[in-house]
């Protein structure tokens, strides 16, 4: 039960941090922000690593494998595509 309470504290505090971080973003950056945040949600990959590589039955490992594939697509694709978008925004600054 103590674990749960501790985790809930973290959850609530992180939510406040999240709200504060995002509230002042200009609309120009909404798409990159969303896709960057989306890549971060692929953090579930580290959970997938533990399941795919951990002790346990083969069945669980296959599920973990699928989770790794999914999460890695999310992480790698998400960060790369965000970078591609932001690169374009960046270029303008050099021009000026």
């Amino acid at each position, binding site marked *: 039960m103590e*674990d749960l309470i501790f*985790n809930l504290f*973290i959850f609530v505090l992180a*939510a406040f*941090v999240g*709200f504060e*971080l*995002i509230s002042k973003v200009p*609309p*120009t*950056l*909404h*798409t*990159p*922000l*969303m*896709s*960057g*945040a*989306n*890549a*971060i*949600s*692929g*953090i*579930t*990959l*580290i*959970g*997938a690593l533990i*399941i*795919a*590589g*951990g*002790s*346990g*039955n083969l*069945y*669980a490992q296959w*599920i*973990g*494998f*699928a989770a*790794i594939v*999914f999460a*890695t*697509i*999310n992480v*790698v*694709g998400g*960060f790369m*595509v*965000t*970078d*591609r978008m932001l690169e*374009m*925004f960046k270029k*303008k600054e050099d*021009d*000026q």
Partner: protein
Amino acid sequence: MSQFLPEFLHSYIPTTIQLVYLIATGFFIVGIKRLGSPATARSGNQLASFGMFLGVVVTLFDQEIISFEFIIAGVLIGALLGATAAKKVQMTAMPEMVAVFNGFGGGASALVAWGEFTRLDPSLFDTQSLITIGLSILIGSITFTGSFIAFGKLKGFIGGGRIALPGQNNINLILTAIALVLVGWFTYDPEYQVVFWSLFGLALLIGVLTVLPIGGADMPVVISLLNSYSGIAAAMAGFVLDNNLLIISGTLVGAAGLILTNIMCKAMNRTLPNVLFGSFADGPAGGPETSDSDKSIQQTFADDVAIQCAYAKKVVVTPGYGLAVAQAQHVLKEVANLLEERGVEVKYGIHPVAGRMPGHMNVLLAEADVPYDQLKDMDEINPEFPSTDVVLIIGANDVVNPAAKTSPGSPIYGMPILNVDEAKRTIVFKRSMSPGYAGIDNDLFYSDKNQMFFGDAKKSLQELASAIKELD
């Protein structure tokens, strides 16, 4: 990989992992913060990806991980697929891409919870873990199927309009309630397989049924909300695994997604329940056929538009989804360049929900090298319309519909719009007279000050560009 480290270090591993997780958390927070400003955004994204890299690498040293075949194969396949997709996707297709990535993220969280549940004996789980396993599977699965339906709708595989059974909203609410009951039942009796599988199947179904009825114009809100869900699903997976990094990062994303969703809703003057459960089609849509007879439009052609623009002082472009569909952003920029060479001031007025995801138009125009100081938000550009000579409305419709201000009966009444009708002249680039996604007729088209330039946006802009060149 802990087996490769000397024995005496083993006792430090768990603490070290947690400390590195803490550092990774810092990278995520600073990364998201920096994503908030154009000048620092790229470095923000890089910081966040480095944080992710740290988190993943240090996890490999977790003593629970003993075999690497699945990990190596999975990461290679996923990275290859993700990188290829990210490199190949066109900027116009960005909303679809984000939806797909998001779906995979949500799916992964559901799989993690399922894997953890399968890996260990059900009797080992306490109530907290069981609830969060249930919620993780529920939210993750909804995100998974919901995102792919959103993808299908954006791609046009699935009809963009409202697809729904009668009473669909009540059905969805009841199904969601049943799913929550199943989470409770699963917590009470985790060994009863039927409950587990019913929950999984029902969650996947709910994802399909809730996104299917939502019209294309509401997609920015849906994608944003699903993005939030995928974060919450990751946070739930973090509860299952007792992993702080997952809880914090997932929650950050969940909160960020909610804020964005809220911004989108405000821009449309609608509440989230209204977007999810209501529909434009439910409103009193004054059908376009009813009063067509007494309204007339003025049609125009490239040569005429060219003259009007070339001799204007100020031209404002208001782009919409049609610009993306026609892939016309580069030609648009060419037209703008030609006009600027002639001393015309060109600006872009961007409605917050133009396109199919928040900021969609900004990304497109950035791709075409439009400097971002020319991109104006609704609040910035609206005061400028009275002093604007020509507004070029390219592939936008509902976001410039004066009915939002003038007719209280209209389904979009109250939605803040771009006040293009205050400009001296508006020119609408449009394929045909068909109404926008909201299915409402647009009085702007029949205004004395408006002209219609029919045709594919890209082709029309190309004609316009050559017409401007010929003026010399």
